[in-house]
């Protein structure tokens, strides 16, 4: 063992770099993880500011602050930023930080690739900002297509659409490279004795996320490349004038877009799989079934995409298949919920901030599950399609399902990352503030949607005024709560009660959890000598 460490030290890992070089040339998984997380935090505020513009405009009927074109551009970019700029990088940041430490690897399998996949993100973000600015400096019509970028409207936009296509290429390449790296690390870098079925659930969750991304992201990149060809090189993949079919793009988009939902969700399920046993002080109930459930979810998620397209005019036979497939998804999701609920059953529960978030997720994600089954049923969906009911559904799926899972992860691992305990009182305040304001924002949208308010329109009928006012007030409170989140994070980085190596009493319940065997914060290099897992 010692001889391995000696040769290892010899050919790699010189002294720790300092200054800007430490970050720009970083190949250290912890530093890259930190950069990912800060990037995601920045994008959270950018995308959140756009949501505030949307809700300010919708506070009352009529046109108040922005033009319809700019409004449409705002909801387009809000979605793209939150998905590609916030949730995915934040989850990748946690993967970078935690996976090597959890499985006892010295670093990611391909550290230089890791550096590249991070630094593609700011380049992509710059492209995205340029795409927003371009229409104001003579770049033609803004992108008003929504994040689905359906042609023909996306073919008609000005150069901001081209910039957005390049944004997607860059962010896509970044997440493909990160996924290859993570999957390779998980398969090859586990410490001796760390078998696949001993891995912490978070590692498993990211394994499936990575595999999904490797499968779907290139297909989407292909789809937007075809859009680019249609716009500039005279092809007509999606232009009916030249014999193309715009519906083909919808299939390509949702072939990516539906599994993408699970890409956003699974890392948070992984965090739940760590947090719930920790604060129940009990091993996870049904570890194997949870892993198989995630595999089932990922597989099923690949073959149900066209439930987003019921109104496009597919045959009854095809919609039937997609309906049944979609409803089947509630089986693995339900299984996961029961895994977590039975883990809590007769545990010695305490309610620190991560656990509060975990319980809120289990409860609120169930709302999204129920509305999801409603939307999966074809005759019902024809009514709900493109109304605010859908908006309420996917925000209930993605904010508790993905974003709150990341918040739980941040609070759970902040002591490990910074070496300081966060302020529990502020953490709890943040939890109640976000959870209540989130529900105030999105719960009324179920009602306005069922009453027939269409989504993606700057104006609405006066009968929806009250619902929208409540929604907007909730949204402003929800947005404001994130300043507290920022304050808590800064405060924890700057100081606080020193965290022990294992800050949570129940942290190693069930899984070996090697991340708790190193100090908080961990040294720059961990596990240069592979640890032995019994």
């Amino acid at each position, binding site marked *: 063992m010692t*001889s*391995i460490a000696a*040769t*290892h030290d010899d*050919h790699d890992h010189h002294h720790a770099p300092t200054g800007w070089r430490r970050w720009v040339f970083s190949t250290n998984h912890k530093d890259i993880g930190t950069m990912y997380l800060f990037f995601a935090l920045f994008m959270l505020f950018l995308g959140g500011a756009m949501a505030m513009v949307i809700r300010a405009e919708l506070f009352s009927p009529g046109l108040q602050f922005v*033009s*319809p*074109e*700019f409004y449409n551009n705002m909801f387009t970019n809000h979605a793209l930023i939150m998905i590609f700029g916030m949730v995915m990088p934040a989850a990748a940041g946690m993967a970078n930080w935690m996976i090597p430490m959890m499985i006892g690897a010295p670093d990611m*399998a*391909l550290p230089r*690739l890791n550096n590249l996949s991070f630094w593609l993100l700011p380049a992509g973000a710059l492209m995205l900002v340029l795409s927003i600015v371009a*229409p104001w400096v*003579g*770049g*033609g*019509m*803004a992108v008003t297509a929504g994040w689905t970028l359906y042609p023909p409207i996306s073919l*008609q936009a*000005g*150069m901001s659409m081209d910039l957005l296509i390049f944004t997607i290429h860059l962010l896509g390449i970044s997440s*493909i490279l990160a996924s*290859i*790296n993570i*999957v*390779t690390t998980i*398969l*090859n*870098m586990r410490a001796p004795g760390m078998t696949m079925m001993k891995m912490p659930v978070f590692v498993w969750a990211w394994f499936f996320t990575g595999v999904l991304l*490797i*499968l779907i*992201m*290139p*297909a*989407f*990149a*292909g*789809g937007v*490349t*075809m859009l680019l060809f249609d716009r*500039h*090189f*005279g*092809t*007509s*993949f999606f232009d*009916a*004038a*030249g014999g193309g*079919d715009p*519906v*083909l793009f919808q*299939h*390509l988009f949702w072939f990516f877009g539906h599994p993408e939902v699970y890409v956003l969700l699974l890392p948070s399920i992984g965090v739940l799989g760590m947090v719930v046993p920790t604060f129940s002080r009990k091993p996870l109930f049904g570890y194997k079934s949870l892993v198989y459930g995630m595999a089932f979810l990922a597989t099923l998620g690949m073959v149900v995409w066209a439930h987003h397209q019921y109104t496009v*005019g*597919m*045959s*009854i*036979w*095809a919609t039937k298949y997609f309906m049944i497939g979609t409803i089947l998804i509630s089986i693995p999701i339900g299984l996961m919920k029961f895994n977590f609920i039975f883990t809590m059953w007769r545990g010695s529960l305490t309610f620190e901030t991560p656990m509060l978030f975990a319980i809120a997720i289990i409860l609120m994600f169930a709302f999204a599950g129920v509305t999801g089954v409603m939307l999966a049923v074809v005759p019902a969906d024809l009514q709900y399609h493109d109304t605010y009911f859908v908006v309420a559904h996917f925000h209930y799926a993605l904010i508790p399902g993905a974003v709150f899972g990341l918040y739980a992860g941040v609070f759970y691992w902040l002591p490990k990352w910074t070496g300081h305990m966060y302020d529990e009182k502020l953490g709890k305040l943040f939890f109640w503030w976000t959870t209540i304001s989130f529900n105030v924002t999105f719960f009324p949208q179920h009602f306005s949607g069922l009453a027939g308010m269409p989504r993606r329109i700057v104006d609405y009928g006066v009968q929806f005024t009250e619902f929208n006012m409540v929604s907007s007030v909730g949204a402003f409170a929800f947005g404001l709560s994130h300043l507290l989140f920022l304050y808590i994070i800064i405060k924890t980085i700057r100081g606080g009660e020193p965290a022990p190596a294992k800050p949570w009493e129940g942290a190693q319940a069930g899984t070996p959890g090697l991340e708790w065997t190193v100090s908080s914060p961990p040294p720059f290099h961990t596990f240069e000598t592979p640890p032995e897992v019994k």
Partner: protein
Amino acid sequence: MTQQLPEQEQQQKNIYRTALISSVIVVGMFGFAFALVPLYNLICDVTGINSLFTQEKRVRIDADDIQIDQSRLIKLEFDATINGNLDWEFKPSLRSASVHPGQKMQTTYLLKNNTDQVITTQSIPGVTPWQATEFIKKVECFCFTTQTLQPGEAKEMGLTYVIDPQLPEQYTTVTLSYTIMNLDRDSVIKGGQQGPQNVAVLNK
């Protein structure tokens, strides 16, 4: 100094192998997106899953053999749309017609090319409500072929149609819409970018 232990070497090999396999999958999935273009058309043609209509189940009848149903009149509306922002004129000579199902009718659409270029066009039909689509039978239609117009040329294009008497009772008004498309792909790209004007209007 670069001497590595066999197990480390093996691990490095495994890492490269996994990364290589993943990269091949990535390239394959990128190609898959493009392969879907022909595959999609093929699958839709063979299985018909991209169409809500079940055409096979109904008996097809020849337009000349259809019995005229004198008992009801269907209001058929004609509509014309130009795809893109082009300086053409395209309109039906008749806005609407009341016809008995089974009656063979004729009408025309007018197309004029106001540009200084030769253009080749094709019209794509659409029927509203869509449930009536298969009951509007075209005996002759300008949409079956392409039309080429010289600069400034105008053309009257014929359409002969019959409404199938099996059209369900609840449809009393049917709209037949044609969208005319420019088949010259190069000019679509150069002329079709409708950016700055629209922005100016919307930002007012």
